[in-house]
Structures are given as structure tokens and as C-alpha cells.
């Protein structure tokens, strides 16, 4: 039998990207293990701990806010045809095409001192760039729920809200949760907009930059490693939980 060389070729080409993504991760971890003293020192730095906490809290708050507003929006986009729907859909996707420094400038121009250098500002910047993930995931999740299920629920006596909460929402949940995780991940990795809107209170991703600028590569590496480790662990754990919920 002839071997399927096309697939081998494609796999070889595709591996380039996988290696390209995995290699820097691997290298930074390896280099840091060779310099464990610096890592331990960093872990005892109160500034680092506080910034990590700030990052975690703001990203989590962002994910929750995006759920609160994004799930209803996703439902409307999935269920209702209306004039200007394509415009609404385009607005949802706008943050993806705007450079994040520009996002920061826009937010600052619009809300100025209300968000400048505050937790509100961090969350505002994060929400702007990461909410589309929740909205689109919720919309896709609801689109995958057969509308007739809700129709039947209603003829059985459920109000629209009840049909939503006991049928559409539970079925779309894995998709929505995936979206919220993406939002969280995108939020905790945001720098550009936060840099402009809220340099303080300091978040870990800003601190990495500051240490790099002030003390160089060696000083900024341990925080980077801790940040990546924390984000990846949470990201993978949450994805695993959602995957399990989907199969249950």
C-alpha cells in the first residue's frame, strides 16, 4: 500500500507552529530552573505577590461581568432577527481589530479620570478587549440549542425566562463557560490597554514590563514564569472541568 505522503507533509508543516509556540515556553522554564534562587526570591517579593493577586482578581471580575452582559446579548443574537443585527455583530468584533494601545487611548478619552489608575480602569480595559469571546461563545452555544426545545417547554407551561433558564442555558452552558475562560485568559494577558489606562494598581503583566525596563531580562523572567504557570494551570483546569461537564 502506498503511504499517504500528503498528510505527512502537512503534519510536518503544521508542526512548525506547534514547536514555535512550545519552544519559548519550554526554554523559559528550563532557564528558570537553572536559576531557582531568583525564583524563590521573587516569590517573596510583596510587590510581585500583590500584582499577581491584582491580575487574578481583575481578570476574574472581567470574566464575570462579561457573563452578566454577554450571555443575554448572545441569546438575543442567536434568537432574534432585527434591523441592524449585522451592525451589532460587527461592533462585538471591533475590539479584535483595534490595536490595544488605541483601545487604552479611546477609553481614557471617553471616561478620563473615572477609570484612570484604578481597579475600574484595569477591568474596563480588560473587558473591552476580552468580552467578545464570551458574547460570541454564548451566541454560538444558544444557536446550537434547537429552538423547538424552548417552544415545547413553553407549551408545557414555562415562561420565556423559565424556558431560557431551565432549557437553553443548561444546554449552552459548556460553550458559554469555554467563552468565559477565553475571556479570562485574554484579560489576564492584556497589557497594551492597561498600560495606558491604569499603570497602577500594578498588575503582574505590567510589573513584568517594568522589571524588564528597569532591571533587564533576568529580573523580569521569574515573574513571567510564575504568571505563565498560574495562567496555564487555571486555563487547563477550567477547560478540563468544562469538558467533563459536556460529556456528563
Amino acid at each position, binding site marked *: 500500500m502506498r503511504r499517504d505522503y500528503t498528510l505527512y507533509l502537512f503534519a510536518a508543516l503544521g508542526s512548525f507552529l506547534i514547536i514555535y509556540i512550545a519552544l519559548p515556553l519550554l526554554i523559559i522554564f528550563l532557564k528558570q530552573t537553572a536559576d531557582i534562587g531568583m525564583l524563590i526570591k521573587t516569590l517573596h517579593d510583596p510587590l510581585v505577590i500583590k500584582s499577581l493577586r491584582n491580575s487574578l482578581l481583575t481578570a476574574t471580575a472581567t470574566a464575570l461581568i462579561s457573563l452578566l452582559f454577554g450571555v443575554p446579548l448572545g441569546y438575543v443574537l442567536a434568537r432574534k432577527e432585527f434591523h441592524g443585527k449585522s451592525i451589532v455583530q460587527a461592533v462585538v468584533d471591533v475590539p479584535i481589530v483595534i490595536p490595544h494601545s488605541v483601545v487604552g487611548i479611546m477609553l481614557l478619552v471617553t471616561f478620563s479620570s473615572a477609570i484612570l489608575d484604578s481597579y475600574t480602569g484595569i477591568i474596563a480595559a480588560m473587558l473591552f478587549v476580552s468580552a467578545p469571546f464570551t458574547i460570541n461563545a454564548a451566541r454560538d452555544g444558544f444557536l446550537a440549542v*434547537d429552538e*423547538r*426545545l424552548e*417552544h*415545547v*417547554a*413553553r*407549551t*408545557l*407551561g*414555562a*415562561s*420565556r425566562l*423559565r424556558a431560557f433558564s*431551565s*432549557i437553553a442555558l*443548561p*444546554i449552552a452552558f459548556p460553550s458559554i463557560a469555554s467563552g468565559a475562560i477565553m475571556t479570562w485568559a485574554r484579560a489576564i494577558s492584556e497589557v497594551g490597554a492597561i498600560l495606558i489606562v491604569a499603570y497602577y494598581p500594578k498588575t503582574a503583566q505590567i510589573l513584568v514590563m517594568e522589571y524588564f525596563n528597569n532591571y533587564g531580562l533576568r529580573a523580569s523572567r521569574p515573574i513571567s514564569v510564575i504568571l505563565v504557570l498560574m495562567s496555564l494551570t487555571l486555563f487547563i483546569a477550567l477547560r478540563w472541568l468544562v469538558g467533563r461537564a459536556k460529556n456528563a
Partner: protein
Amino acid sequence: MLEVRSLSKNWKEFSLRKISFDVRKGEYFIILGPSGAGKTLLLELIAGIYEPDEGRILMDGKDITGLPPERRGLAYIPQNYALFPNMRVFDNIAFGLKLRKLPKAEIEKKVKEIAEILDISHLLHRKPGTLSGGESQRVAIARALVIEPELLLLDEPFANLDVQTRGRLISEMKIWREDLGFTALHVTHSFEEAVSLGTRVGIMLDGRLVQIGGVREVFSRPASEAVAKFLGFENIIEGTASGRVLKANGLKIELPVEAEGRIRVGIRPEDIILSLNPVRTSARNVFRAEVEAVEELGPLVRVQLKSGGVELRAFITRSSMLEMGIRKGKELYVGFKASALHVF
């Protein structure tokens, strides 16, 4: 009970044109039509899922046209059953009862009762994704009936099932209806379902309800060419069966299977053989008949006959008509094989 008055609606490629009919209490009303006739849309309007462009829907004399689905007192079973995949069968059936805030013990009792009747007690702990088509349909029917709706709306309930399951469900449906005494509005494209289950039938073609009447009446006297063409299956004989013999208006017809009680049988016009002399073979039902009317349809001729009190229609070719000298008033013999009969 249900009155539909002059209902019209344009929606996507479907349109309903001035649909009017009524469903009486205890009745099993069938709307029969080819796919694309707008049957599902009609059910969705009655269920309150969409609003009509024009017309009214009344339930027990009360106008429900503007009411949301949850306040109409009816249950709807769409074609794909629409079982809630996130709930076990038990919770699917209990859904409507929970919304009515019944005590837990009573919910449990009612679900178990209906599951018993529909023979799905063993499925209660399963998730819908693991059920076969026939099982899913039973669960869907149970979920609808358990809330004791005034009217049950069924959209092609047996269309996606294999022939055997379908036949069994149809005959069981008759029993459930006797046991539970519900009123149903059932849309289908299947003549078998219409003839087996229907008290009355409405024929729907191109968004219009073109004929309404008793099942036998509609099948034996199509109001228009279009209805006749759609029905095709034009001879429906009603009578009392005992074993393999059906007594119908003075005829004793041999059946292909054993049956008891009032039944209907159908035979296609092209399966009826006309002859000038009786041909006696064991396989054939042969009766004297008189020609009542002759209708030429191009190369084919439709002959309307009366044998005893039974009206029959047969197709013959134009040349055999001339050869046998068939005309109004002519006496001849009709014959058909028992196996050509369809017992509903």
C-alpha cells in the same frame, strides 16, 4: 373546543391562506397534506409560537390568539420530539408538573402512571440521547399527556420511525386515546395515520384547507380534482370484521389478516379488476357491481361502481372500456385480491 377562524400567515417559503376549522372535544382531528403544505406552521400558530397575520384562534369560545404558549392549555409535540437532552426521561415528563408546582409525591405518582400506560417505566432514569426513535416518541407523548392538556398537537409523530415501530405506535395510540380520552390535532402526510386514527380529517394543499369531513367521506368523495389526485388511495371500505371476513354493507370481503370489530380497509383503484363474467378463484374477492359513472382521464378511465351498498372506484385502460362496453348502468363483476387490501 378549538376553533380556527380564517387564519393567514406568511412565513419564509410557507404561507397559510384563510384556514378555518374546528376540533370538537374528544375528537382526533387529522390534517393531511403533502410536505410543504404549511402543516407545521399551522400547528405553531395554534401553539402560540408564532403570531398569525390575520385570523383568530378560539379555545372553548375564548379568544387565545394573543396569549403566549404557556397560557393556552395545550401541549405540542414537534416532529423531532424535542426531548430536553439535559434532563433524564423522568424529569422530561415531570417538567410541566414541576412548573405547576405540584407536590413532589404527586409528581412522582403521575409520572409513574403515565410511564406505565406508555410502557416506558424502564426508561425513566435514562438520558434522551440514549433512546431509540420509538422510545423517544413515547416519552414525548408522555411528557405532553401528563399535564392533561385540553388539546394535544402532534406534528408528524410517526414520520421518522421504521415501519414496524410506526404500526405498533399507531395501534397503541388508539388504546391510549380510549384510556385517557384526550383530544388531538395531528398533522401528517400519511394516509395510513389519517385513516387509522382520524375521527375527522382536513386536507391541506398549498396552504389552504381544501376539504374537511369524516375520514371515509373525504376519502370516498374528494371535493376536488386536486384532493382526489393527492389522495390516490380512493377506496375506503368500512365494516365489521370477524376473523378473516369483513362484512360491509352487504358484502363479505376476505381479509389478508385476522381482525375484529369495526375496521376500515383501503384498496387502490388500480388494484380492482373488472370483468364481464365472475372469475372464481380462492384468492379473489369477486362481487357483482353496477357502473354508476365513467370518467375519462386521457389513456385511463375511472369507473365508479356500486356493489351492494359499497362504492368503489377502479381504473381501467380506455381500450378495455371499449372492449367491455362499459357505460353507466352496465352490470359487471369487480374482483380484487385479499392481499391488495390494506387493513387500517
